[in-house]
Every structure is written in C-alpha cells, then in structure tokens.
C-alpha cells in the first residue's frame, strides 16, 4: 500500500508498504530517518517515541497505515519543532539564537558542528545525559513534549512524564539534570 503523511513538516509518501509494517519501520527503513530507535519494538522502552498529531507515541506500536494524512515529528525534526514553538512565544520557549549560546564546547569531530539544536537537545549534551545515546531520541521527544505543556515541572513530574523511556546507562540522574536545565533555560528565555 501507499502511505501519505507529514514528517517534520514535509509531506512524505511511502510506497510498497506491507500492511504489518510499523510507523517505526517506515521511518527508519523507507524514509531514511533512523533517529527513532528500535530497542524493544514492543512498546516497553520508549526509544522510538515520536509525536503523532502532537501526542507522544511509541512508533513501533503504530501501524504505518494509521498515520495516513497525519503529522509526525521525530527527533530529526525536534530542533525545528522547538524553534517554531519559540517563535510562537506562547509556550515560553527559547529562541534559537539563545539556544546557540549553549553550543557544546570542545567538540572533537567536525561532524555535527554548526547544527541548530533545541534547548532540550543542548541540555542533554551539557548535563552529561548522553552515554550510549540509544534511549536519547525517545527521551528528547518525550521531555520536549512535557516541557511544552509543563514548563516548570517538579522532579516527580519529570519522573512521571519520562517513566515510559528506559535508559540503561545513566541511572537517570543526568537526565533529570538535563530536563531541569532545559526548563530553567526556557524560563530565563521568557
């Protein structure tokens, strides 16, 4: 079958999709967007979290056919998504110019330099919330979604919002730090 939907603001068309394919498979294997991760493919780990019409979902549990005509935001589109929210200003977000001030220092590889990041992406780098990084895309999408509607979360709020995202490396402490940091920077940016 053919599936038409919008990914990160761009219309996409996927052909020859088998009915059993998940949204995750179509993103990763047909649209060249492997940022959403495949840690369990059974809805338990959150590494494949994307926004579907604004709501965070496990893309491994969404059949590709279900997204016909709908809007998907993945980690690859997170910076743009946060940027548009900041321009709208009603969510109290941070402008991209401000976000750039937090550009990671000491980057040792040319790859990825000069990339625009959302506040939550930058905070994950700065706070040391990334180790192997496999859980990171899903956590970023989930944390960004929480900050969108809860810009001043308590620790318990953060833990509750991210409880569907497993991380095996960090013990979550630096992830907590990163979300607190992004929230603080976001509120300073108002």
């Amino acid at each position: 079958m053919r599936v038409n939907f919008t990914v990160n603001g761009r219309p996409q068309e996927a052909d020859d999709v088998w009915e059993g394919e998940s949204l995750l498979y179509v993103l990763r294997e047909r649209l060249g967007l492997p940022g959403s991760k495949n840690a369990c493919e059974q809805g338990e780990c959150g590494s494949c979290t994307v926004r579907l019409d604004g709501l965070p979902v496990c893309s491994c549990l969404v059949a590709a056919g279900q997204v016909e005509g709908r809007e998907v935001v993945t980690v690859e589109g997170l910076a743009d998504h946060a940027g548009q929210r900041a321009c709208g200003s009603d969510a109290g977000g941070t402008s991209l110019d401000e976000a750039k001030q937090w550009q990671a220092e000491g980057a040792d590889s040319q790859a990825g330099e000069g990339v625009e990041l959302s506040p939550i992406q930058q905070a994950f780098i700065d706070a040391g919330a990334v180790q192997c990084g496999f859980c990171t895309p899903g956590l970023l999408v989930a944390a960004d979604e929480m900050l969108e509607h809860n810009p001043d979360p308590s620790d318990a709020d953060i833990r509750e919002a991210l409880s569907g995202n497993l991380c095996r490396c960090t013990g979550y402490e630096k992830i907590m730090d990163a979300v607190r940091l992004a929230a603080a920077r976001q509120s300073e940016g108002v």
Partner: protein
Amino acid sequence: MPNGVPTKITQGSRTKGGIGESTLRPDGILKVTGEFAYSSDMWHEDMLWGQILRSTVAHAEIVSIDTGEALATPGVYAVMTYDDLPTEVKNYGLEIQDTPVLAHGKVRHHGEPVAIVAADHPETARRAAARIRVEYRELPVITDEASATAPEAPLVHENRTDHHIGHVPHPNIVHRQPIVRGDVAEARGRADVIVRGEYHFGMQDQAFLGPESGLAVPAEDGGVDLYVATQWLHSDLRQIAPVLGLPPEKVRMTLSGVGGAFGGREDLSMQIHACLLALRTGKPVKIVYNRFESFFGHVHRHPAKLYYEHGATREGKLTHVKCRIVLDGGAYASASPAVVGNASSLGVGPYVVDDVDIEAVALYTNNPPCGAMRGFGAVQACFAYEAQMDKVAKELGMDPVEFRQLNAMEQGTLMPTGQPVDSPAPVAELLRRVKAMPMPPERQWESSEGPDVRQLPGGLSNTTHGEGVVRGVGYAVGIKNVGFSEGFDDYSTAKVRMEVIAGEPVATVHTAMAEVGQGGVTVHAQIARTELGVGRVTIQPADTQVGSAGSTSASRQTYLTGGAVKHACELVREEVLDKGRRKFGSYHPAWATAELLLERGKVVTDAGEVLADLVDVLGDEAVELEREWRHRPTEPFDLRTGQGNGHVQYSFAAHRAVVEVDTELGLVKVVELACAQDVGKALNPLSVAGQIQGGTTQGLGIAVMEEIVVDPRTAKVKNPSFTDYLIPTILDTPTIPVDVLELADINAPYGLRGIGEAPTLSSTPAVLAAIRDATGLELNRTPVRPEHLTGT
C-alpha cells in the same frame, strides 16, 4: 587518613579541554539529533535481511532439518544450516571454542541458533525461518549442580579437550579455582562467633538498549566488510575469520554505533551469521535482533549459589572466611573461567582476613549461557559477603559500618591470593564518607495537598498513602579488579598523528577501542590535548586497520587505551620537540636546557616562556606513530592454592541505601542510593559521575526486580521481553548522590583507577541490607520479590 599522593600531571593544565575537565562528548551532537549511526541503522542498496532460527527446546538431538519450504518462499535468497558451513572450523568462543556457529546434531540450550535465512524483507525472512522444520528428540536437562554432577549425569560437552579439563572434578564443571591461605581450622578455634549463610543470586541480563545488529558487505576480493556493535573488534575478528575460511585481513571490521554493552557484547552474536549469508548470496546482509531474540542472543550474568562461613572475635576482628561459590555457566563456556577467577580471588571482599578457604566453580548446564556482565564474578560474591558482614555485626552487637571499618583492608594488605594491595585502598574512608552524607528527609511524600503517591512504594498504582510503610538503611562496600587478570597479555594500541590543518595544529587519534557509551572517545581527546597542547583533536572511527585495543570490559579502557594514547602522544611530543630543536635550537638556549612542554599550540618552557608556535615547528610535515602499551604483567593463580599476583589494580566503592518498604504488600521504594568511590584521578568528572550512577542503578535492578526466569524442569526462558524482565525506570531510580575520592595509583596513567564496575557491586547488597533493616527478614536471595517480604 587515607594513604595516597595527589596526581602529578607532567604536562601543564593550561591547554583548554584537557584531562580533569568535564569536556563534552564529541558524539553528543550526533546522538541528540538522531544522526549517530548505530549498528542497527546501517543501510545498503540491495541489502538483504538475515534471520536466525533458534531452538525451541533446551537439550535435544536434532533428528532432521527440512529447509525446503523456507527456500521456496518468494523473496528468500539463502537458507543455511550446519551442513552449509564453508570450512573445517565450525566452532568459536572467547577462551574455549565450544560454541557451534550453527547447531550440529544437538542443541544444548533454549534459543541456540540452528539455521539462518536471508530474504529481501525482514518479515519474509522471519516467516521463512518459521517454515524450517526441525525435528528434536529431547534429552534430560541439566539445570543445577546436583543434576550436573550426579553419577549418571549426561555430559553437556563430551570429549572436552580444553585446558581446564585436567583440573576439574567433573566434565560438567568448566573451571574450578580454590584459594587457600592460612589455616581455617585453627582460626575457627579463635572465633567467638561463627555465622553461616547460603545465598542465591538470580540471572541478570545486560539489557543494553541497542539490539545486536550489523551489516556484512561482501567484497570483490572474496572477503567481507563487517560493520557491527561489539566490545572488542580484534577478538571478534580472531573468532570470525577461521569459521569463514578467510585470512584475517579479508575480514575488515569497523565499529558501528554501540547502544550499550555491559559485557553482553564480549561474545559474538550475529557477526558470523551475517558474514556467512553475505558471502553465500553475494549481497550485503543486515541482521537486527528484536528484544525477544536479544534475550537469547547474548550471555547473561551467572546466577550463583554461595555458601559462606565467617568467624570473628568478640572484639570484632574477622578470624576466617570459608566459602564456596557455584556459578551456573550454562551451555557454553564464554567467559566462565575468568568469572571463576574473579569470584574466588575477590570472594572475601575488601577486608583483612588471614585465614581463608575459598572455592569457586562454574558449571556446564543446559541453562542459557552466562558470561561477562559489569562486575564479572565480583558482584555475586559481594552480595553474599556483605550480607554476612551484617550478620556477624548483628551477632556481635556492633554497628555494621564500624565492624566493616574495623576489618577494612588498606594499602599493604594481602589479598587471599597473597598479592599485596600496593596502591591506596580507602575502604574505611569510603564508608565514613558515604555514612556522613546527609540523610534524605523522612516522609518525603507528604505535602499540603496529601501524599504524592509517586514517591511511595507502589507509585502510581496508588497502593498506599503511607500506611504500612517502614524505612530502612543499609551499607555495603566492594572490591573489583581492573583490567584482564591471571597472566593475560593485556595491552592496547594507539596511533597518534600531529599536523597542521588550516593553519592550526591538529592531533588525530586512531584506536580500535569500542566506544559503547562510556565516553572513551571524550577522554582520548582530553589526553591528546593535555599531552600535545592542541585544541583540536580528531578521533578516528574504530576499526581493525589499527592494532588491538583490547576489550571495553573490566573497567580497563581508560587505563589501557587511555594509557596507550598517552604513551603514543608522549612519543609524538618528543619527536615534535626534536623537530623544534633542529629548526630553532640555535635561536634560544632553552631548547637545549629547559624542560619543554606543549601548551595551547606552542612549545613552552616549564617556566612558561614561549619558544615557538607548533605551526612553525611542524610546517607541512606530519608526525605519526602507532604503539602498543601494556599494564604491568600479572600471574595466573595457582590451581591448587590460588596464590599469585593475579590482578593489576583494585577499585573500591561504598553505598548507603535508604529504602521504604510497604510491608503489607511487599513493595519496595528505594529512596536514595548514595555512593562514595575512589577513582584515582577523575579524567572527566561528569563522565565519572555518570558511570557511578549508571552502575549503581544496574545494582539496584538486580536487588529488587531484574531476573531471567528459567524453568527448572525444561531449562526454558520464561520472560524474554521488557514486559516480563523489568529494568529500573526513572520512577524506580532514586537520587544517587556521589562523593568522588581521588587517591592516585602511581602505577596507572595519571594515577587513575578503572571505575565502571565497582559501583555495580556494592549497590545490590546495600539495598538488600536496607530492606532487611526495614523488615527484619533474612532475605538470602536477590532479586527480592514481594512474596519474599510478605511470606505469601
């Protein structure tokens, strides 16, 4: 006060981004934007998907395999079984080559690979694999020590020829290591109290999030290029090339992004299967396990039965320890022999005990194969000896921390192996520090709006509002070896290049070190900046075009590959300075007389005077060299007495756990898990904290939730999914305050101590001790389940 000297750094600290700073990960931007290429993200035009058919029973003869229907499935390019293997070598293994690439006439555990399929879509491959008909004739299963060593026990491996068979009491025992020092019988006579205990440690899974995966691309020269996630490229290569019938140079391996490892990628998983299918079909083949398969696709942490006897005088001095540790190695050897070496040599913990009688064995059974996982044999022992320490303290009426401090080892203490601990061992100090941390406030869940159930046992299940909830506090401390032990030639290799690019001096570091998330790439760049005084460092992708880095295991990579990078940088620096002396020596006497350093892109004297710009010294010539670097040699343990200088370095951490237990429902909330650890030198403090917190959380997992459940009647795995095998979520994980001590080990680069594993040891027994404190129950197994607390 603890012994130890502050670390002296030869090169100055004036170059930004050097060691000791919390520089940020070079792969951080790629990882937060989704651009970082993990092994499961590999893609190639015209690639096929590989699928493995695994045994549905644990122990059986294979009567027949019919691949006809699978081969006839449209979209299928190849189906291979044992009969299709290309060469005489058909087994592989880390130490003992006992693992068949594909089952030959027999399967020895549930989930053993029997056949492989390549097809143009992963679902086609899965369905084709399901159409392979395998007829099994089931055999009795061996599941524990009693069934393994019974008089009529079938042998898991017949006709063993490995180097352990000569000293084991039964062919179903992989390896046995006794450690005997002093005279336990005599010491027992001096004991005022004797405490015995029997403990059971469950089977833990590494549960790294990035599934086993990779891409094999057949090459025109008949070889294969393999992109894969692993912990040790060269160890993989040594096992892969022979079964493909290829010389090692025709198997070119490149490390893909690794989504965690924790020991679970020491053994091969899909590597050989993908290469076989690629060579058979002439097409690139990608294999990605799903989570269900991942539970069968790698070894686990050994479950263990541990029998301990501790004696102590009335004054609180340990007289002796006698223990027996039985590790279940499962169907194949994997790393079992080395795990036995660790469990035995570290079996009494970080304490002074002159009279010891230790025995550790690993069994061959039909349970899932077990091997490396963070903590590697030391974890199981720590769980048991720390429970014993609490029991003895209780028997003596002493404070458990004071009792530990009274018996704590220090620099100069002899290990049970007779090896002196020759660098700081601040065991008592770590306990003091962790005890001195402020306690989390009582009844944190209370607020003016009523209880916040998210902070209570049971959490959002809303099972209590505080009624039946009791707090407990527990302590534990552990000792872990760093690096490969027992005489292994443990080395790493680094290639370092220095040149001018775009008017700026640049260092390039190339190693085969597997970056699995730990941050080795960050540290390598920091070392190069410190040693070469440059701002910009490029880290080359890890591959087999450079010498071996050894494994990303045993807390060893910063020590070993960090040490190799430091060593190579020092030699490059000498060459650069020689170049400078030849070019500019006649202009300034200091070139000949002063101690020269490279800092901030310049050659400077130790007094800080600038002699030349590195850009001018280097000109358009590059300085490059590749060198191996070793830690000091170790010795094997004597097979009878266990004596020998077997370890390189020791690492220590202590934990304090605060838990709240709903005693009516048996639910546990870990409120805080504080850790104090000596790291020698924190090369990157942010990463050090991350390692400690991550390791601590894996210890929490085995304390209260994680266990692979194997049916004792069938040896089949009952919970191979994240639905049924639980790892800690962010709601299960408490705050983890960390206190880092830096006492240099003068034998190690920068005085550093390997840090990754020690926190996984003491975390589990601290949580168990806290639950015992809250409930008064004995709790001699881990993980603790609700029924153990409620008695239901």
